[in-house]
């Protein structure tokens, strides 16, 4: 599989020489994915916590919806967002199609159920007696939530990592709503797709290696935070 070997060598060359276009694409990938992950966490964690702790009317339905959202095919999300953002579509007035904003929207729709679902499971996994103990020790509402989140830290970090993974690996939806436009919405995954379609496999592999390194770097940091200290029980 000399193509893979050649690809890895080219990845090294691109990174060492600091190829400007590759750096721009990589930076844009981080920005768009970072924003989408941040929004997904800001929405997803509270949703997951609420569904775990509160007896809301229709709770079962909402939990099912979140779990269903975890399995949503990204290409379907891309198609729906694309049609919604069409000029003559319902959200056309926003003028968001073929912008990074559209990609962020699609990635949030894909990633936030993942974050919410993992959070929900992580909070629910905490021994109910622990909750009573925290309250019994005189915690107010915010202390209670903070301590609960700390207890569920392993699952929560898994939620963030899973959300980030969903966002950064997204190609179909990103292509449709972003348009893979050079200098504007071109990211690593869409570029890899384009290069494969053009038959330049060595460059596609090189970009894949860079994408894998990027993903590993970010998840390694998050994993360190997840694993670095065991709380004395």
């Amino acid at each position: 599989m000399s193509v893979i070997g050649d690809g890895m060598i080219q990845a090294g060359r691109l990174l060492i020489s600091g190829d400007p276009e590759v750096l721009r694409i990589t930076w844009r990938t981080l920005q768009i994915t970072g924003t989408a992950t941040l929004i997904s966490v800001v929405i997803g964690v509270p949703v997951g916590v609420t569904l775990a702790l509160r007896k809301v009317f229709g709770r079962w339905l909402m939990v099912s919806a979140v779990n269903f959202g975890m399995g949503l095919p990204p290409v379907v999300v891309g198609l729906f967002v694309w049609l919604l953002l069409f000029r003559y579509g319902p959200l056309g007035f926003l003028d968001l199609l073929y912008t990074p904003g559209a990609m962020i929207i699609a990635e949030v729709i894909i990633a936030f159920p993942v974050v919410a679902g993992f959070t929900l499971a992580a909070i629910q996994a905490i021994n109910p007696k622990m909750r009573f103990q925290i309250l019994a020790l005189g915690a107010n509402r915010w202390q209670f939530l903070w301590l609960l989140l700390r207890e569920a830290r392993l699952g929560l970090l898994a939620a963030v990592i899973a959300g980030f993974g969903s966002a950064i690996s997204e190609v179909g939806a990103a292509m449709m709503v972003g348009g893979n436009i050079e200098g504007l919405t071109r990211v690593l995954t869409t570029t890899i797709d384009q290069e494969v379609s053009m038959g330049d496999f060595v460059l596609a592999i090189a970009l894949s290696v860079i994408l894998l390194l990027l993903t590993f770097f970010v998840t390694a940091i998050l994993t360190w935070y997840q694993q670095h200290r065991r709380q004395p029980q």
Partner: protein
Amino acid sequence: MKKNSLWLCGLVVLLLLGLAGCAKKQAQAPQPPSPANKNLILSSTTDVQDTGLMDVLIPMFQTQTGYVVKPIYNGSGQAIALGAKGEADILITHAPSAEQPDVANGDFINYQLLMHNSYVIVGPPDDPAKIKGLSATDALKKIAAAKAVFVSRGDNSGTNIEEKALWKQAGITPNGSWYLNAGQGMAPTLLLASQKTGYTLTDLSTYLAQQKNLQLDILVQGGKALTNIYHVMQVNPAKFSKVNADGAKAFEDFMLSPATQKVIADFGKDKYGQPLYYADAGNIATGGQ
């Protein structure tokens, strides 16, 4: 202990916020002096992207006029469909038979011939169906008779539309395990044909660009039926008010201008020893589908 985890939390949040903030700043990067509505959506086909022609022409246009072109590349079928819904401002496609209905009903205006090149039928060097040198329709008849593997784009692209038209001219409905539907772009389709030692219809430019990856020879070329004709057309602003009419007109004028036509005519000569496109502005279209 509590402080440490708080710090780390804050750091991660800051990092993500910083990335998000940088995203905003980059979007406000300085632009050259520009027209009122500078965003222009071009709906075009993958081949003009793959050959690199658009990578040359679009920056030229943007520098000259200050418009920001958002090119969306698909097969001709989808490119035309997007334009017919008013979701694009200007089109460059190469499937006249699919373009005509929308020109006739007024979805597109200023339908102008832009350039042409040619399709070829490629196949394994030993040519089991013995089609070398035949006309396109005769070659297809022999391929069907021999049940030799033929790979179709299967994606309603311009090449696919041309292929279907050729089968129709030959009076054959291709069917059977020998007729493979790739459902992909031209380069992957060529690779599939090469792997399966089969035949396929391709535009010459993509074949030349992929040649080093393939074990396929050009077996049938030339003739009116294999001409690949590109038109440029604006989406009708009278029908679709959201269209950037000024931008579309500027782009069309640019594409048809003598300077640009010269760039098109010279494109690829140094790399492939032959021009990839023949500039046609002002000519009458002959041949093709």
